[in-house]
Structure formats: structure tokens, C-alpha cells
């Protein structure tokens, strides 16, 4: 099936099996390996991307479901001021260790801050509930999001 969608602000058109998970298409067809495969069943959030500005697990999303949609991966998000703010906060708070969960965490944080620029701790934990981190114990990541929110200054 011919599938057209917007990926990181550029139009892409692919002839792929529409039932292939978006994750596989991103990594194997398009070489965008910033999106990680963790559990492959929607439990861990390592594969999270933004679809129409909303956080989505790309392992569970057939690529046929994003026809005419807007997909943003960590590679595209890197070009934004919001990314710069989050990256600084994650670095300062010690929120990155092995880094495997980080692309998903950054996008989950971005999706939260876009809707709620001053979240409290409960809201941050709820927004990150689908993203697992096995290194940091999560607390440093929560602190990183608090730090980024407190500093503000980004067009989330």
C-alpha cells in the first residue's frame, strides 16, 4: 500500500505493508534508529514517538494508521528549542544513564509540557507512567522534567 505521511516536517511516501509497526518502518526502512525497540508490546515506551502531537507507542501502531498524519521522532524533535531545554535539564538532573529509554522519555515529557507547562509531580509521574527506566529509578527523570518546567522559556 502507498502510504504518505509527514515525518519530522517532511513528506514521505512509502510502499509498505500497512500493518507493519511504525517502529519497524522508522528503524528498518528509514534508518531512524533513535526510536528504540524495547518490549514490542506497549509496556515500556522506548518506542514512543509523537503522532499529531500526541505520544504514541510506535511498536503498536500499524503504519497504515498514520496515513496523512504528522509523525515526529526524536531525530526531528532534536531540531527544536524544546529539545534543547529538555536535554539540558536531563543532563543536569542525571536523568540519563544507559540512554535506551531517553528518546521516549524526552518525547513523553514534551507531550506533557505542551499541554501543561507547569505540571506538578503527580502529573509528571502520570505522564511518564508508560515509560520505563531501569537505570535511574525514574526519580531523576521526574526531577529533570520539573527543572525544565521551572526554567520554562521554551515554546513547548
Amino acid at each position, binding site marked *: *500500500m502507498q502510504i504518505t505521511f509527514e515525518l519530522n516536517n517532511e513528506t514521505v511516501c512509502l510502499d509498505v*505493508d*500497512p*500493518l*507493519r*509497526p511504525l517502529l519497524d518502518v522508522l528503524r528498518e526502512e528509514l534508518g531512524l534508529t533513535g526510536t528504540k525497540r524495547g518490549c*514490542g*508490546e*506497549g*509496556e515500556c*515506551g522506548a518506542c*514512543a514517538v509523537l*503522532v499529531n502531537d*500526541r*505520544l*504514541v*507507542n510506535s*511498536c*503498536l*501502531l*500499524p503504519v*497504515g*494508521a498514520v*496515513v*496523512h498524519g504528522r509523525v515526529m521522532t526524536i531525530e526531528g524533535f532534536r531540531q527544536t528549542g524544546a529539545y534543547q531545554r529538555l536535554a539540558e535539564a536531563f543532563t543536569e538532573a542525571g536523568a540519563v544513564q544507559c540512554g535506551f529509554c531517553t528518546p521516549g522519555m524526552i518525547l*513523553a515529557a514534551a*507531550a506533557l509540557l505542551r499541554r501543561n507547562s507547569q505540571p506538578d509531580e503527580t502529573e509528571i509521574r*502520570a*505522564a511518564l*507512567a*508508560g*515509560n520505563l527506566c531501569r537505570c535511574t529509578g525514574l526519580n531523576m527523570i521526574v526531577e529533570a522534567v520539573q527543572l525544565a518546567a521551572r526554567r520554562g522559556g521554551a515554546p513547548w
Partner: protein
Amino acid sequence: MVTAFRPVTLNEALAIRRTHGTVPLAGGTDLMAAAPSCSPGRGESSPSIMFIGHLTELRQIRMEQGEWRLGAAVTLADILDHARLPAPLRQAVADMASPAIRNVATAGGNICNASPCGDTLPFLYAQAARVLLCDSGNRRELPIERFIIGPGKTALRPDELLTEIVFPAREFVVHRHHKVGARRANTLAKLSFLGLADMDAAGRLSDIRLTFGSVAPTVIRAPQLEQRLCGLPLTEMKHHIDEISAAYDGLIQPIDDQRSTREYRKQVCLNLLRWFLEELIA
């Protein structure tokens, strides 16, 4: 490659359903997770798939003549974002999965998946919800408890689509929802309880709905037991709690599985029921 359809309108989707059958895929979160190598329809007898999650006819949330009408492809996130929808429904949805899954998973999917632990089902049973089923020429409505036949089984015909979920826009003064799982997020229920109740000016129970999820092939609700409680002055409730609990003890027959045990499920259900009834007195 599995045949996939992507209709532009609901009418087109119903025509495809009539001609080709096909498995409807709205959000796909259950289908994709269940399929081997995370992609549905890869088996030998792979059926075709039809994307329906983008159909605007299925994405509406409307109030009409005192009833809520949710399109089948309304997402769980849409329900959470809609502040006027009943609190117990929004609370049940808030306890489901994770934000990334709620952004995709749909109201209709949670019903058609017909899981014993479907988290929206206790609310829909308590509210006597109906589902609207359409084929390319006709439409019919079924009460939720007649649509869901058993685990993974529904009364949906091969040429039909579930298009809307309908329930009275009726709020209850008291509502308590408890989902018991191994952790707070991204978890399947070991059991769940929803209690709804209203009192009249004279301090009598005027309406009560009690539902239990994940403890039977389908949601447990016993309208005849609820009926017996209606009209009961709350001051007399304490004399009836043991009797009510015993009646539900007979009805709740859960199983042992990888998530929990029969004993735990039943005991916690009865504890939550007792807690709810005691709270009504206070």
C-alpha cells in the same frame, strides 16, 4: 502482505465489511499486541484488515435527548479530555494503560475485545449502556450485556460494525471505582469494583448499581439484588450488609490465573462491596 482497506467514509467501510468481512482495526493496541511478531493477520489463514480509527463518523462525542453517544473510535484520551463525561467513566479510563496507549486505544475496541478485564465495561454495565450496530442497510441496538457473550466473543455479525456506545447522561451522587492491579499504571485488573448510588430526600436508597470486573467471563451485575436494596433507609443498611455480602459471595466465582487467585479476587471484591455500603451509611 495482508490485504488492508482504508475506507474514507463509514458507508464505504460498511460496504467493505459486507463484501470482504475483514477485521476492523480502530486503535489496534490489542490486535497488534496479540498478533505474532506484533503485527495482526500474519498467520496462515490471515484475514484482511480494515482501518476505521480515522473515520470522522466514529469520532464524535455527543449528548442527545439525555443520552451520551460515544463514537466507537473515540479514544480513551478523548474521554479523559471531555470534562462533562461522567466521572466514574473518566476515572476508569484514567486507570487504564498509559498515556501513549490511551492516545490510540478506543472506546469501541475495549468493548469488541470483550476481555473479562475490560476496564470500561463495569461502568457500561452499571449504566445499562447499549451499543449501536450497523451494517450497510440496517442498524440495531443491543444492551451491552447481550452484546458481550464471553471472553473475546461478541454478538457482532461479520457484516456489522459497532458504531456508537449509548448510555443515559445520569450522574449518581455516590460513585466509587476501584481497580486492583499489580501496579498503578499499565496494568491489567486482578479485579475491579464500581458502585453507584443515589439517595432520596428521606434518606432512603433510591438507586444502586454494583458491578464487578475481572472475576467472571463477563462483568457481574445483579439488578434483582440491587432492586431489593432500593427504598431501604440508610439507617437500616447496617442490618443488611451481611446478607448482601452473602448474596454476592454466591455470585462472584473468579478463577486462578497468572494475575491473581480465586480467593484473593473474591475476598477483595467482598471487602470493596462492604466498604462501599458502609460508606453510604456514613
